[in-house]
């Protein structure tokens, strides 16, 4: 039997991590969490997570940066906001999840899966065209997963195509994507807002 040692030494933790996460709007309520577990109990997908939402908040506060940013939980969150509505301490859990996804991608040591790939592809497509072409996105995803070749999927794709809901050769694009790109570039160029967006 393998020896699996799980003690955590203080020097491995990152006390600045909690402060970084708490910088988002409403983030000061992170300190109010009483670990009641209502978020995990209300979350429709917490049962699939390696760390429940409550655990994530507790780990963030204690400075377990690695564990949090490498977890699968943050990618499983669908941002349905059920936890945020139920939380008795006003912790903005869903927004914390968004912040953690961003930090994870910056850190580059996050759990590799389809979700972050989809999200990055989404951003690239929107940056280039100003809009998302759903069908193209769908095809990208299908090609990367086992869904490709699944008969059921092809049947659905065909039926959607027949009903004008899937146009494989059409690109949904702004007339003047530059009008958007200029704005995005200008925001990126400035210093990062101290209080970021949700």
């Amino acid at each position: 039997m393998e020896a699996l040692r799980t003690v955590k030494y203080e020097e491995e933790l990152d006390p600045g991590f909690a402060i970084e996460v708490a910088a988002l709007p409403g983030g000061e309520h992170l300190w109010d969490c009483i670990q009641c577990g209502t978020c995990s109990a209300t979350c429709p997908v917490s049962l699939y997570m390696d760390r429940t939402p409550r655990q994530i908040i507790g780990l963030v506060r204690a400075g377990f940066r690695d564990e949090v940013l490498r977890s699968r939980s943050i990618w499983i969150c669908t941002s349905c906001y059920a936890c945020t509505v139920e939380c008795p301490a006003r912790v903005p859990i869903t927004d914390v999840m968004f912040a953690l996804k961003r930090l994870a991608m910056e850190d580059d040591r996050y759990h590799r899966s389809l979700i972050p790939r989809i999200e990055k592809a989404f951003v690239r497509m929107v940056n280039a065209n100003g809009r998302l072409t759903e069908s193209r996105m769908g095809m990208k995803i299908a090609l990367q997963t086992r869904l490709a070749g699944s008969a059921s999927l092809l049947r659905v794709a065909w039926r959607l195509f027949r009903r004008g809901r899937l146009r494989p050769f059409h690109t949904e694009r702004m007339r003047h994507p530059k009008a958007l790109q200029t704005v995005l570039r200008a925001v990126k160029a400035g210093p990062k807002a101290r209080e970021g967006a949700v």
Partner: protein
Amino acid sequence: MSGEYLYYPGCSLKGAGAPYEQSLLAVFEKLGLRLVEIEDWNCCGATAYLSVDADTAVALAARNLALAERTEGQDIVAPCSGCFLSLTKAKRSMEASPELRARVTSALRQTSLAYRGTARIRHPLEVLMTDLGPAEIRKRVVRPLKNLRLAPYYGCAILRPFEEVDDAHTPTILEELLRTTAATPVDYPYKSRCCGGMLTSGVPGIGLRLVEILLDAALEAKADALVTTCPLCQYNLEVFQDRLGKARLPIVYFTQVLGLALGLSEKSAGLDRLLWRLPLAPEVPA
């Protein structure tokens, strides 16, 4: 209240959600309300952009708000619940952080757009029930959808976290709309439980299970169809039914139901563009 609105379709309504756009425009026209598509709008960012970059995501959404503000006094109608929430979050972020607002505003000015923070973002369900009202809608119903059992599905974004369209725990607005058409809203336990969002594509093992829970509940409640307010919910609940081996349950947009009741044909309401047909009684003379 001029009966004129600025229309923000969002990327989905130009794709798989085309029947939503079709029925929305037809219904608004039938009711004498005007929808004018915002000039050269861009993607709202949905949840994906926010997962990658926060400030840019806000600017992305804010550009649409600034475009809308060029027409004074008209509200934005955002039919896709995801867009509705995305735009609302961007507006509120800028209200909460003057620093963020300043940066976004100055970036928008690079393309001669001004952002004042006055744009109002609304969902068509709320617009119809507030600006027109159930009594007025009922007056215009020419084809009462009697004996049609419809399960109202709110999804998450219009209720959470801001409760802008209705109360998050006991919403009733969709049922009230369905009642104006004489249809019977069906009670079942998961009216605002997550449909899976991106997980049906990203982690089907989880996403499909969420879809299954909703379909099972609606079928157990003997609903003839499930009524949605969001194109992603509609897609998720509709396209995986074969794969899940479920009895077919039509997933329709509330605008399609309303359109039928107001006298639109099935074709005009875009019902032939869904995968599963709505079981309708023979045409009742108007």
